[in-house]
């Protein structure tokens, strides 16, 4: 029983990480109509920026976290305004450009930091225990920050005028811009918000899991899985699906072992695709 609860806690903290990634991914798709292949790249970049700030510059971890978020958001903003904006109307071109940008990012990180994974560990050690249930403090902090970020995103999207404008863009771009929503401001903002979330996740999670130039690939695959499961462009769908993915992965890894967890998820996603091609909470798919 204790093992069951401990696994559940791991699953929930995994789910909160996936939520941050999937929220960014789904925001970009919902608002810009772009599949961001570079999402894993921003995750890795967040991790490396945090690593550089703590290990090389000797800054404290919370400051490093903020710098990681700021720099990934900044790069996302620049990428959107300078490159993505030019091809925003052509879905295939946006795909190619983000994919190319991911390759450039991964190679740049490889050249700057080398292929070996650096020594980067979470500043808080120790394990919380209650009876037979163990939960590392590091995971607890990650869970807390992730939940706070999720609440912040929800507040931003559903309770502010900026969020209303973004949701209007997602609903119907033509009508929203005719009513005065400014694409030139909202698109870069949404993209920067999403890449900042990816950077935050990277800075939080890579000290626990692993930091290496290539860790963005599985992140991309899991973001895809989550948004397919939840329904592309749906914020609540992404959140629900991310927690399902986290829990299934944790329980399958413990009770089935090895890579069975990933396989279980893939099968789950295939079944969902047969029954509900638009995902769990997805609405009619936008033509993109």
């Amino acid at each position: 029983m204790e093992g069951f609860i401990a696994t559940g806690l791991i699953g929930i903290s995994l789910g909160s990480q996936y939520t941050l990634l999937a929220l960014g991914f789904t925001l970009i798709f919902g608002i810009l109509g772009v599949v961001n292949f570079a999402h894993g790249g921003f995750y890795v970049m967040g991790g490396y920026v945090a690593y550089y700030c703590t290990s090389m510059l000797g800054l404290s971890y919370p400051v490093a976290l903020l710098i990681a978020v700021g720099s990934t958001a900044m790069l996302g903003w620049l990428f959107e305004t300078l490159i993505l904006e030019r091809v925003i109307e052509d879905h295939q071109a946006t795909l190619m450009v983000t994919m190319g940008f991911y390759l450039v990012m991964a190679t740049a990180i490889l050249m700057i930091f080398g292929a070996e994974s650096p020594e980067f560990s979470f500043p808080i050690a120790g394990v919380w225990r209650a009876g037979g249930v163990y939960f590392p403090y590091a995971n607890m902090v990650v869970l807390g920050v992730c939940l706070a970020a999720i609440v912040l995103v929800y507040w931003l999207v559903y309770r502010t005028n900026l969020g209303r404008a973004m949701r209007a863009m997602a609903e119907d771009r033509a009508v929203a811009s005719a009513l005065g929503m400014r694409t030139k401001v909202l698109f870069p903002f949404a993209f920067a918000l999403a890449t900042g979330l990816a950077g935050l996740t990277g800075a939080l999670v890579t000290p626990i899991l692993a930091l290496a130039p290539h860790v963005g690939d599985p992140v991309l695959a899991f973001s895809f899985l989550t948004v397919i499961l939840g329904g592309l462009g749906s914020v609540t769908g992404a959140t629900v699906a991310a927690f399902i993915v986290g829990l299934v992965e944790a329980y399958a890894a413990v009770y089935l072992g090895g890579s069975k967890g990933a396989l279980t998820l893939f099968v789950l996603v295939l079944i969902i695709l047969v029954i509900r091609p638009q995902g769990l909470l997805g609405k009619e798919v936008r033509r993109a």
Partner: protein
Amino acid sequence: MTTAAATISGYLKQKAPFFGSHEWITLGLVLLAFAIPALTTNPQALSQANLILIAATAALGVYIMLRLDLMSFAVPSFMAIGGYTVAVLSLRLGVTDVVVLGLAAFLVPALCAVPLGWLILRLKGVYFVLVTFVLTEIVQLLLFEAAPLTGGSNGLVGMPAVRFFGFELWDNSHVLLTTTGLAFAGFLVTAIFTRRFRYEFAAIEKNDVLAESLGLACWKYKAMAFAVAAGVSGLAGFALVNMLMTAHPTSFAPMSSVNYITYTIVGGKGSILGTLVGAILLVSATDYFALRGELSPGLFGLLIIVVTLLARGGVIGTVTTLIGSLRARGSRWLGNGPARKAPKGDIR
């Protein structure tokens, strides 16, 4: 009156030939590779030619799906199915005839693609991209999990040399001949398939909803294209496994699909020649920059961005446009050229 009749009969006579110039040039270039073993025995050159032909054949899977405006990441999965089919047949059942193996490497992936296509092709553009991407990850995991059949992380090692009507193809130049044969088969199938249905594909590429409402059974063409793309990818998988003499999961890594997409896009996605030219240029470039092997993904990424932003037709598209405008300028300058001809029904 007579001019109108002349125009119409001119149009009828202009009825586009089955193969355009690009198809002939492409097939000719692939055939030329048969001559390479006679010209050189340099193992470096032979392996380079091998790699180029395999890359080009694999990229055909991307090219075929792009005819329908679908971006496919599934090439490595079908390469793996084709490659492992050959490995299992030759190691477990002792089949070494290259024709039989080639047919199996085409048919097994194509048959696997039918139920998968039924599942995937109902999905619209972006979903198709995501699911084909996830599919390569699934196949990768399955290769590791299904150890009794695939050898798991050890792969299948020590394949016997293939035979062509009893003649054993074992040394470096023979391997290149096998690869060339497979590549030629792949290019021929692709050229015939994409030209045979070029009008249908063009209609679906432009606007599949409109095509559907005009009575075109889109799903049928999409399913066929998915199966043929899978089969051609399977041929590339056979060639790769045959060159390495092993079938190993790492040969079919999910991210390698990005390379095949790059070849097609940078070469020019509008023409089959673009796929070949893209593979030749980029595989050679990878080799040229091999001093810093890890740089090649960055180079590919940069090229993808530049081509997408500046030259949407890729190398072939840009060259074709250049030649066209030079010709137009030349004839205007001479003053006696015909007025600009109606486009020759050259729907790709």
